[in-house]
């Protein structure tokens, strides 16, 4: 049988679990059962269920509380609430909370089969929608770039135009904004796409080595030059030369480079023969070159030569619309790479990602997702996985931290009074029933008081 539908039945009553389990199995579904909320959530962490039958009235953790977590962490899972006669109000509340439907015990068999069929149909549509969304994703992808913000969409069409010309391009943007990726996209879209893309990080070499990297050298040109070597200019023939961190090129070499760019001719170190090359230059910098020119650290003529067309990539904090998209893009990549079955970033975590300023831009976001995927033991990334970002966040995700503060406070007071509910309630200035409810809600127990 193909891809079986997986269903999880959550009910504290054994007879209900057993009979629903038996009935659903006869329809060929793969069915598991859980007798409580925490067991169910633990199973959801490991297994992608298509459908959940969830009893509303359960001790310790109510169905409504489980529903909240499911909608937050596993939005693809459909939920049918099970209610007893007389608790329809709660069921309606659950529907508002995102449940897909509810059934009253005992169910009419026809109703149950119709509902299950209907939901599976719905699920199929949902999955197809995800597929459609992925197809639509064409629009938000450009070569290896992802972006839906206006700024990125504009950039995509600029890249297209620029690629069609053969002019020099200067790409500016903070570190990690994707300058190299944009350069590659221009190359890939250009007539030179079958030629080489040669990148050189100008900041990565001391002066004399940079020179020989660029222009190459003849045998014996300097001590240690045992054999002749082609420079990057040579290698870029018929292709694109990408000068990364061009702002770090020493003044003297700027002159030589400028000449080479203008004449498309150069000679190797220690050589005299002029070598003719045909390449296009794309340069990138995260430095303010105007300022560098004023300070006398960058030649104006060289700047004009490079800056025939300029492309600016805004920092990630100025295009936060791209954050969820990029986050999911990287989640997809790293969950694949690590062979982990992680398919979502929950709302709370996403809220934090959207809020953070990302001084390291897309690269920092990429690293954050990779790190979260590596430490993640569940099927979704949540706040826990991004705790390393927490120190930088201003009152992130208000509700959650409030809740955590409350739990910590409750545990502290309960411990103080040796879990004597009456005394603890007095100290907390709440009544015993309320305290009991909170203990149940947060599943507080002396043995796990530290959590």
């Amino acid at each position, binding site marked *: 049988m193909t891809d079986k539908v997986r269903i999880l039945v959550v009910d504290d009553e054994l*007879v209900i679990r057993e009979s629903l389990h038996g009935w659903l199995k006869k*329809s060929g579904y793969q069915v598991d059962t859980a007798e409580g909320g925490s067991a169910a959530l633990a199973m959801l962490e490991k297994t992608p269920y298509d459908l959940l039958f969830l009893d509303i009235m359960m001790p310790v953790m109510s169905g409504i509380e489980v529903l909240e977590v499911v909608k937050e962490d596993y939005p693809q899972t459909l939920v049918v609430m099970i209610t007893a006669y007389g608790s329809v109000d709660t069921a309606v509340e659950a529907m508002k909370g995102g449940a897909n439907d509810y059934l009253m015990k005992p169910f009419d*068999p026809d109703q149950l089969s119709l509902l299950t069929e209907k939901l599976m149909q719905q699920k199929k549509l949902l999955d197809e929608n995800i597929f459609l969304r992925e197809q639509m994703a064409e629009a938000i992808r450009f070569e290896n770039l992802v972006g839906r913000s206006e700024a990125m969409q504009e950039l995509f069409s600029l890249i297209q135009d620029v690629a069609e010309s053969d002019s020099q391009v200067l790409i500016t943007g903070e570190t990690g904004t994707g300058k190299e990726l944009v350069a590659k996209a221009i190359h890939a879209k250009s007539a030179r796409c079958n030629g080489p893309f040669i990148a050189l990080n100008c900041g990565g070499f001391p002066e004399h080595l940079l020179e020989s990297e660029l222009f190459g050298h003849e045998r014996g040109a300097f001590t240690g030059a045992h054999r002749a070597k082609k420079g990057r200019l040579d290698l870029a023939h018929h292709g694109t030369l990408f000068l990364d961190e061009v702002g770090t090129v020493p003044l003297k070499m700027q002159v030589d480079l400028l000449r080479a760019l203008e004449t498309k001719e150069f000679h190797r170190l220690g050589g005299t023969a002029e070598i003719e090359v045909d390449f296009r230059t794309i340069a990138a910098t995260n430095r303010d070159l105007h300022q560098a020119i004023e300070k006398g650290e960058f030649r104006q003529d060289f700047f004009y030569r490079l800056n025939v067309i300029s492309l600016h990539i805004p920092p990630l904090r100025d295009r936060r619309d791209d954050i969820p998209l990029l986050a999911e893009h990287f989640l997809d990549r790293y969950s694949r790479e690590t062979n982990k079955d992680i398919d979502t970033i929950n709302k709370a975590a996403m809220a934090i990602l959207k809020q953070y300023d990302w001084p390291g831009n897309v690269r920092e976001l990429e690293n954050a997702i990779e790190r979260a995927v590596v430490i993640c033991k569940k099927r979704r990334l949540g706040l826990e996985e991004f705790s390393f970002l927490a120190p930088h966040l201003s009152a992130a995700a208000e509700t959650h931290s409030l809740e955590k503060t409350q739990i910590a406070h409750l545990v502290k007071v309960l411990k103080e009074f040796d879990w004597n509910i009456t005394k603890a309630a007095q100290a907390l200035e709440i009544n015993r029933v309320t305290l009991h409810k909170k203990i149940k809600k947060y599943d507080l127990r002396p043995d796990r008081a530290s959590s």
Partner: protein
Amino acid sequence: MSPVNTRVRTATENSVRSNHTSLPKDGVVGVVRLGSVGEAVMKIVAANLQEILHLPVDILPARQTPEFAYSDQRKQYHAALILKKLAESRRPHPRILALVSVDLFIPVLTHVFGEAQLGGRAAVVSLHRLKQKEEGGGVSLDTFYERAAKVALHEVAHTFDLVHCKQPECIMRLSSGPTDLDALPLFFCEYCEAFLEEAYRRYDIQRLPI
């Protein structure tokens, strides 16, 4: 399509398959009535099972209404409890099907027409709701017999691991209500037929020659 109504012997004659003399003494499916269930419907159900499952079927001596399964709260009989008891039967038959006239339920459902242990030994069919039209009033005897045979076939097939089938023309299709049941054919689609063959091999069950 109307149900088969031939080659039916009474319980005392021990077997509905006396014309297959070369077969082993005991059948594969034993059909038993619990409480007051008509003689005719027993024979028709047994004959249809034998014909369509290609398995030797025996009609077993009648037993009492399963009062132990009665629920005061539901005013119905708990199907799963009946199955449990049937599965403990000391009869040699690898499969036991019970027919009852009382209304059946399982805890999550308001009622069931029949119930079976998936891949197990026992199945039960209630005739209670099969006699009525959905819109009220009774149905003809023919329709009633046909419905009984269909539910019985469907439930016994569950004991051979068959699950519900999406084919429009198949007895394993999940029906909603007796009218829906009337629209189902009294046979398996070719997929389910194949699954059944496979199950017979798996359970080492000898089918009758066609």
